[in-house]
């Protein structure tokens, strides 16, 4: 493990008191904090290089364009994607998914087609598909959960039929932390010629992701959960879909030629990036990726995994605590409840101790319905979290349980 103290020092926001206690930030699943290198890259860009990109003849515009395109290359390299044009900058995971659904609905998805989702999808990976289905007589089918709240892959094959066109699935559940076994999904998808979209919002921040090896059709994620800025994310398209995905959000910058009669769209990533993009965001995102790689994705995964194991062990010693997502194959997230107590009460009192947790349904209401609960308390880790923070959390959790009971 690298020097953690040194890592924490790079996050100025962590160095503050909340209600008289040292801030313990355990809400990384919602958004992570940003290191100085990211903050400075954005501020330096505005101080020294701000201009609109592409087609500018002046020097600043060229610099800004180079920085933006270099950011694309950084993201591509990070995910082991050889052709950086397969990396589209979007506003984030939600935006990426919408771009895919709307593009596919133009020529790939037909009336009455079927999409397969998992029980633990985030609303962002449900609603756009649902809207498409409602408008087109389509159908959403759901992979059920097992007792341990991992997916029942044995049921997948029966969900597939002639009309199944796509499987859209979270790489890691944002509520449970459970890692999806994508190999099992891919085998059946390949065999039946079904496209696969992987929602990597919760995997990209926590574990190494090699998109060449993963070999799926679409992969989406958000920079703000990866130590980067809000408002920017990725849509990765396979070689095939870089050619075949239809433009659904047209606008300036996406074209080769335009007449009032007909437009010829660009053949590369620009086709999907209408209007002035989030240039500073892309640059900040690249800095965030540099930060993660300086630490090492494997190191990040192992560190967070250790924290999860450690915290779960301690939580299992508290009889009032129920942990969801019992599978051991987890990344960075623990969801739990205190028996007979509302997650909101636990979260409110934790905040009084300076501990930031998330409570509620975590944008996974259908999962809450499967588990037959109103919500959970969720803690989620990042590289800067420590065992002593977990100790403090456990101590205060016990206190909160006494206060509430």
């Amino acid at each position, binding site marked *: 493990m690298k020097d953690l103290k040194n890592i924490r020092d790079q996050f100025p926001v962590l160095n503050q008191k909340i*209600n008289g206690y040292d801030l313990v930030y355990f809400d990384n699943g919602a958004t992570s904090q940003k290191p100085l290198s990211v903050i400075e890259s954005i501020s330096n860009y505005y101080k020294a290089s701000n201009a609109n990109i592409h087609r500018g003849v002046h020097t600043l515009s060229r610099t800004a364009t180079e920085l933006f395109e270099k950011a694309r290359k950084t993201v591509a390299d990070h995910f082991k994607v050889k052709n950086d044009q397969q990396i589209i900058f979007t506003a984030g995971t939600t935006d990426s998914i919408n771009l895919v659904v709307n593009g596919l609905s133009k020529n790939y998805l037909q009336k009455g087609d079927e999409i397969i989702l998992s029980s633990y999808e985030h609303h962002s990976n449900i609603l756009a598909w649902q809207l498409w289905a409602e408008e087109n007589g389509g159908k959403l089918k759901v992979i059920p959960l097992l007792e341990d709240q991992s997916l029942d892959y044995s049921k997948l094959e029966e969900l597939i039929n002639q009309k199944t066109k796509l499987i859209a699935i979270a790489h890691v559940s944002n509520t449970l932390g459970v890692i999806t076994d994508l190999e099992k999904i891919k085998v059946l998808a390949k065999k039946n010629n079904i496209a696969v979209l992987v929602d990597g919002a919760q995997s990209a921040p926590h574990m190494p992701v090699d998109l060449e090896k993963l070999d799926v059709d679409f992969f989406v994620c958000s920079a703000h959960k990866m130590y980067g800025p809000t408002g920017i994310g990725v849509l990765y398209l396979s070689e095939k879909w870089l050619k075949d995905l239809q433009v659904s959000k047209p606008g300036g910058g996406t074209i080769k030629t335009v007449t009032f009669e007909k437009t010829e769209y660009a053949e590369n990533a620009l086709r999907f990036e209408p209007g002035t993009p989030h240039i500073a965001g892309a640059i900040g995102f690249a800095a965030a990726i540099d930060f993660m790689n300086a630490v090492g994705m494997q190191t990040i995964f192992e560190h967070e995994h250790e924290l999860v194991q450690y915290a779960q062990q301690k939580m299992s010693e508290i009889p009032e605590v129920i942990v969801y997502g019992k599978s051991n194959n987890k990344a960075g997230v623990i969801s739990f409840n205190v028996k007979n*107590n*509302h*997650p*909101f*009460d636990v979260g*409110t*009192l934790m905040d*009084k101790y300076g501990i930031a947790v998330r*409570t*509620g349904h975590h944008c996974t209401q259908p999962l809450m319905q499967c588990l037959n609960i*109103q*919500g959970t308390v969720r803690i989620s880790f990042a590289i800067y979290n420590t065992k002593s923070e977990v100790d403090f959390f456990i101590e205060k959790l016990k206190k909160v349980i006494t*206060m*509430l009971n």
Partner: protein
Amino acid sequence: MKIEETEKEIIEEFEIFGDDWEAKYEHLIDLGRSLPLIKEEFKTEERIIKGCQSRVWLNSELRDSKVFFTADADAIITKGMVALMVRVLSEQKPEDIVKAKLEFVDTVGLKEHLSPTRANGLVSMINKMKADALAFIK
């Protein structure tokens, strides 16, 4: 008792805790626990104040020109806050309820529950109480 008088009473009740937020919250939790606030039959889907993490139910009735509130919540801290609001606003004239500023919440150091991001439904509940009172005036 007038609204301001009840507010004053609550302020005094909380004063003994000083800066000890744990004691303050324990009191709030006790308040929440001690009050069965609403008849089970009123805990219906329509009476839920929507969009909050914690579910809050409210029932308003006009009797002898006064509004009688009963309410409940499924989170105990929210229920404590609900109990305070009911104590202050119930059995008051609709005109006074509409005008009430409820500054005691700030004074006793529970203002965070009125922040729009708290998602605990308290702000929505107060708005609903005032809207119901206003409807009784008309």
